[in-house]
Each structure stands twice: as C-alpha cells, then as structure tokens.
C-alpha cells in the first residue's frame, strides 16, 4: 500500500517527466565524429596486426637458432629412443646388466 512518501515520490517523478533531455546540439556532426573514431580504431588495429606479421620471420629465425644450439651444445649420445627421452643412460645400462641383457 502506498504511503504519503510514495505519493510525494510519484509527484516528483511526474514533474521530472515534464523535462525531456534536449540533445539536439550534441547530436550535431555526430556521424562525422563517430566515423573518425572508428577510423582511428581501425588504424590502431592495422598497426598492431602489421607489427605481429613483421615479427613472425624473426620468431622463426629464433626458433631455428635455439633448435640448432640445443643439438650442437648437448647432442644426444645414444640412438636408443627410450634413452633419448629419459636421458638416463647409466640407469639403462645398469638395468640391462642386472637383467642379463
């Protein structure tokens, strides 16, 4: 049920509704400003995208150098696939000896 305060609030809203925001002056040339902002956004995205693509060859070169480096500095001493993965050559030989292999 509505009390006196509710009625006061309703009256306030009723009066406030008589005033509608007049945005006419802010709307002027809005389309021009909007397209400029959108163009700026597109350019920013294009710059980021072009930099990303420019970095791809350098990244590829880096990966190749790291790959070559890892093979030349620490070459795999055994051709056994299991040893290659586990890198536990000694353990493997001991196990083989105990098992009579």
């Amino acid at each position, binding site marked *: 049920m509505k009390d006196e305060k509710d009625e006061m*609030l309703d009256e*306030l809203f009723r009066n406030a*509704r*008589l005033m*509608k925001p007049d945005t006419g002056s802010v709307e002027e040339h*809005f389309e021009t400003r909007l397209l400029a902002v959108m163009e700026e956004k597109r350019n920013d995205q294009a710059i980021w995208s072009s930099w990303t693509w420019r970095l791809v060859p350098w990244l590829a070169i880096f990966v190749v150098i790291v790959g070559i480096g890892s093979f030349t500095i620490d070459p795999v001493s055994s051709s056994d696939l299991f040893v290659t993965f586990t890198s536990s050559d000694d353990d493997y030989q001991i196990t083989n000896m105990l098992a009579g292999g």
Partner: protein
Amino acid sequence: MISTESELPDERIIEDILAGKDGAFVQLVSRYKRKVFAMAARFARDRDDLDDICQDIFIKIYENLGKFRSDAPFEHWLSRIAIRTCYDALRKRRKERGHVPLDIVHYQIAAESGEELLVAEEARTLLEKGMSQLNPAERLVITLLELEEKSVREIAGLTGWSETNVKVRAFRARQKLKRILEKHHER
C-alpha cells in the same frame, strides 16, 4: 513509386553495411541517433560523457551487426545494446558515487506555466541528487520505470534480468529515494 534511401528498411541497410558500405552505416546512425541520445542523456554526466556513451553504443552495434538476427525488430536489438552500454558507463564511475551531473545537457520543458516550470526544474534537480546515490542497477531500473515509463516486462527484456529481479531493484531504489528525500526535507 521510387523509394528514397531514407525509406529503406533496416534489414536492407544492415545488408549494405555488412557488404562494407560505410555510407549505409551513417544512414543507420542518422536514423537512430535521436533515440540513442535521448536514452543515454538520462545517465550521462555531461555533454562529453554523452557523446562518448553514444559513440560506444554505435561502435558496439557496428562490431556486432553480423550477430543481429532479423527475428526481432532492429530497434529492440539496438535498445538492448544501448541500455547495457549505459549500465556499463554507470558501473565504471561507481567510484564517483554522489556525483551530481553537470547541468550541461539542456532540457525541453513540457510545462505550460512558469510555476509548473519551476516545480519541474526543482523535481529534476532533486531527483538527480537522489539518483546519484543509488547503485548502477537501481538507478537504471528506476530511470527506465519512472522516467522512461517502461513496463517491468520491457525492462526485463532490455536488461536481461528476470522480472522479479527488476521489481526487487525498483522497490529498493524507491525505498532509498524516499529516505534521501526525507533527509532533504528535514534540512
């Protein structure tokens, strides 16, 4: 009869925009900017804020236009994006709670006499002060319900909240406003 560009249906304009015609987007903006500005003006602090909010709304519309399905009117889809963007703007400046909007947005007055005009102006100022102390969700609901005169169902559709949620938020907002106004009258 030759149809002019301004008579083109929204769906046709949207097809043109998706085909990459920026001119068609300008046409869509011109068609709906008045509605969007009127809605955003209820939540903006000043002219710059209003301009920023409206730009955000139309950029979101442009970026998401491909997701629009013609099963509902375009205007409804646009209103939902506009309301959510206004809500985000309110949430962003939550830290500035208690901030009273600068009186830079002008108002059209439907009052007939000088006295009515004064009462309306006072009511608007008082409500703005009160509403600036509500949280974003409450402010959004009470503005749509009492100033834009939308129904609970319409607000639920626009915000994505349940009707019960809208009613609860409206009730809390009214309670808070009543307390604020009570304090104001005590002074």
